[in-house]
């Protein structure tokens, strides 16, 4: 450890302005602070500082994502083996998924961090930790069949246009991971929806009778038929247990509600994800779905409200996307409104709008845009209380 520390100290002069390797200063420092918490001491203000820093926070979020990611890998293999009619056994199934997902993660991190480090070098500041989470979220919200070059383009677009142009981590308006997904969704729609994108086939052929449709697209398809003709469970052929555990087609990380729940517990225990925002999103979703139930004119609208929570990306969005502290509402009251409206819009788009099979991504992006407005009114409320006090006294 000492030797490594000395090595870092020795290289430092070369990276200063005028040094041979000044161009790599930000990248070098990023690696250095990754290896060692720096020896900075407090200069003014408080003499002690909490041990937590942004690196720690982001690490915890990644830990919370791991259950969903691991299950996602397994499920990719599982869906492949089912679709091709092969025998299931754990290692090959997981191994298949692992080898499909890993390249996407690597592309996401290499491209994203590369751009972040270059931007930091250009601006002459440190590399921010925000991308550690974004880089993990992007693969998890994509279909496994997304070509790697598309992943690279989407990551580049999102890091540059959703984040760095606004000033980097902490300054962005939209959730960068969702911007990457939305970019692909609108630029390459055939790759992002439909029944064939969710399952990686490899070189095998699909067996007869396997559709690959997600519960959402099944429910949407059933909605076109008269209500009386729709089979039980609103046209969805998957069991509720499969939808909860995640043995259904879908984006890599979104299928298992159980794994997402574990992630949610980690976020709540460490107090990194706010319970207010998660709860209000779920309440909003239930509220909208209940209204749709009451006025149901097709089978989709009649899907029980709670069942929406285990379909599609609602749970993943509510736990990992809505809780993004930068793009979401930042005041406590604002969080209630923000989360609730995401839940409402998410279900509304999902059920009522035939053009989009899933509404969570768009609902969150819309509300990202309105979050500052919500906060503005909450802040105005605080100001009004203060002003009123002054007038009463006077």
């Amino acid at each position, binding site marked *: 450890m000492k030797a490594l520390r000395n090595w870092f100290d020795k290289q430092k002069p070369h990276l200063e302005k005028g040094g041979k390797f000044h161009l790599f200063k930000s990248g070098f420092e990023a690696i250095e602070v990754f*290896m060692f*918490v720096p*020896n900075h001491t407090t200069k003014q203000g408080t003499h002690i500082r909490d041990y937590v820093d942004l690196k*720690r926070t982001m690490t915890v979020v990644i830990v919370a994502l791991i259950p969903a990611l691991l299950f996602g890998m397994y499920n990719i293999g599982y869906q492949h083996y089912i679709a091709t009619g092969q025998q299931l056994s754990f290692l090959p199934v997981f191994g298949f998924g692992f080898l499909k997902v890993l390249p996407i993660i690597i592309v996401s991190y290499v491209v994203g961090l590369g751009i972040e480090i270059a931007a930091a070098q250009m601006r002459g500041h440190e590399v921010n930790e925000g991308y550690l989470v974004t880089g993990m979220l992007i693969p998890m919200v994509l279909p496994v069949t997304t070509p790697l070059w598309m992943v690279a383009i989407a990551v580049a677009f999102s890091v540059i246009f959703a984040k760095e142009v606004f000033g980097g981590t902490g300054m962005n308006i939209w959730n960068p991971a969702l911007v990457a997904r939305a970019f692909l969704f609108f630029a390459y729609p055939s790759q992002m929806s439909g029944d064939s994108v969710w399952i990686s086939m490899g070189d095998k052929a699909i067996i007869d009778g396997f559709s690959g449709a997600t519960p959402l697209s099944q429910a949407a398809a059933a909605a076109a038929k008269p209500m009386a003709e729709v089979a039980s469970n609103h046209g969805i052929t998957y069991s509720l247990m499969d939808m909860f555990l995640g043995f259904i087609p879908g984006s890599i990380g979104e299928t298992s509600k159980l794994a997402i729940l574990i992630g949610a517990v980690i976020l709540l225990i460490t*107090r990194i994800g706010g319970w207010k925002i998660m709860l209000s999103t779920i309440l909003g979703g239930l509220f909208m779905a209940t209204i749709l139930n009451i006025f149901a004119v097709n089978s989709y609208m009649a899907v029980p409200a709670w069942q929406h929570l285990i379909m599609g990306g609602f749970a993943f969005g509510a736990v990992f996307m809505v809780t993004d502290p930068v793009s979401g509402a930042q005041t406590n009251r604002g969080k209630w409104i923000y989360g609730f409206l995401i839940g409402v819009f998410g279900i509304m788009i999902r059920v009522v709008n035939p053009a989009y099979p899933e509404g969570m991504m768009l609902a969150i992006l819309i509300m990202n845009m309105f979050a500052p407005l919500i906060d503005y009114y909450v802040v105005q409320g*605080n100001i009004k209380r203060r002003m009123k006090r002054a007038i009463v006294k006077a």
Partner: protein
Amino acid sequence: MSKVIKLKKGLDIQIKGEPANNLEHISKPETFAIKPADFQGLVPKLTVAVGDKVKAGTPLFFDKYQPEIQYVSPVSGEVSAINRGERRRILEVIVKTDSANLSEDFLQENPQNLTSDLIKTELLKSGIWPAIKSRPFGIVAHPADQPKAIFISCFDSSPLAPDYDFVFKDEAIAWQTGIDALSKLTKGKINLGLSVNKENKIFSQTKGVEITTFSGPHPAGNVGIQIHAVSPINKGEVVWTLMLQDVIMIGRLFLTGKYDSSRIIALSGSEVKEPRYFQFWQGGSLSGLLKERIAKKNVRIISGNVLTGTAVINDGFLGFYDTMVSVIPDGNYYEMFGWALPGFGKYSPSHTFFSWLGSKRKKYILDSNTHGEERAFVLSDEYEKVLPMDILPVYLLKAILANDIDAMEQLGIYEVIEEDLALCEYVCTSKIMVQSILRKGINNMIKELG
């Protein structure tokens, strides 16, 4: 029974090194210093030169813009040095003490028999006046102001703070005399803030005051929080605040006619051998006090508490307003993968380290490492959890960074000073310099208001 206000938000940092309840007498330090930097916004004009003989209470310098406010020598002796910094700014006026123990003579009279103007004159003349701070802004009070009330917090909730019940147990008479003098300075009330967890033997017996009792974690003992809970400051209003030891100094002034700068201070912190109380003096050199009493070499010595105090070097001096000295380990070390380790032994209110599973009564050694680099604001609701005020701290800080005077005013800058937001700075994941940003905003505000 007095009113009880329960504050929920805040944080009692589990830091090691609380002072034990026993008092040690030590010999008087050889040198004393008055530092203009202890007083926000002061531009000092010297009235002494090196070599001048002074008594306790002899003016050393005065405020260029308010010449009636004088800053005096805490002891008798000789001005031995005037240390200057950049652009000849005065850093310290140092007085080498003699054995004579002389004081200037001031009026010795029961303040109840004196007029408000006479009390003001005496306080100004004796140099105790700067102990009266004014809110908004936490600056030395303007003698011409009419404060709507005077607030005094009778307990210190900050980390490792002295227990005022113990410190002032023999000062009942000086305390009441000081309160009597202060009550002539305002047409409003004198508000005392007491803690539910303390005995408050002296304070609860005080006559002529309004008592409010507070429960809850730090910063419940901060006078700013108490003002906000009892009668928040609005635009155009002025409230005066004092520290307890200064009320007692005022009491002693009228009881004895002397400037008596002695005070009991706490020497606390994990690096102190046997943390406890010492009989000490305002502005005294700390070198004698610290010698032989510090366990390690590589330490941070702080005049004041670990959240708001001033770092001093080994032969530094006790600050004008300070009643404690904290000593913690210095944090100038690298830690390999420190951010990734489980952190069973790392105290953190954030729950991201496993130490949160441990006992809430366990005390930890905390050092001066920043534990990370400064970043942009990312997390929300961190500051709000440790600030028991109806204020949105992040929005206030952003208004200050944008230098938006109107927004600063609307978001409540009149109600806070650095110490009130100190915990926000401690818990901040992004390592933002909350206190220095706030002071910058306050200074801009003062400039704007003229």
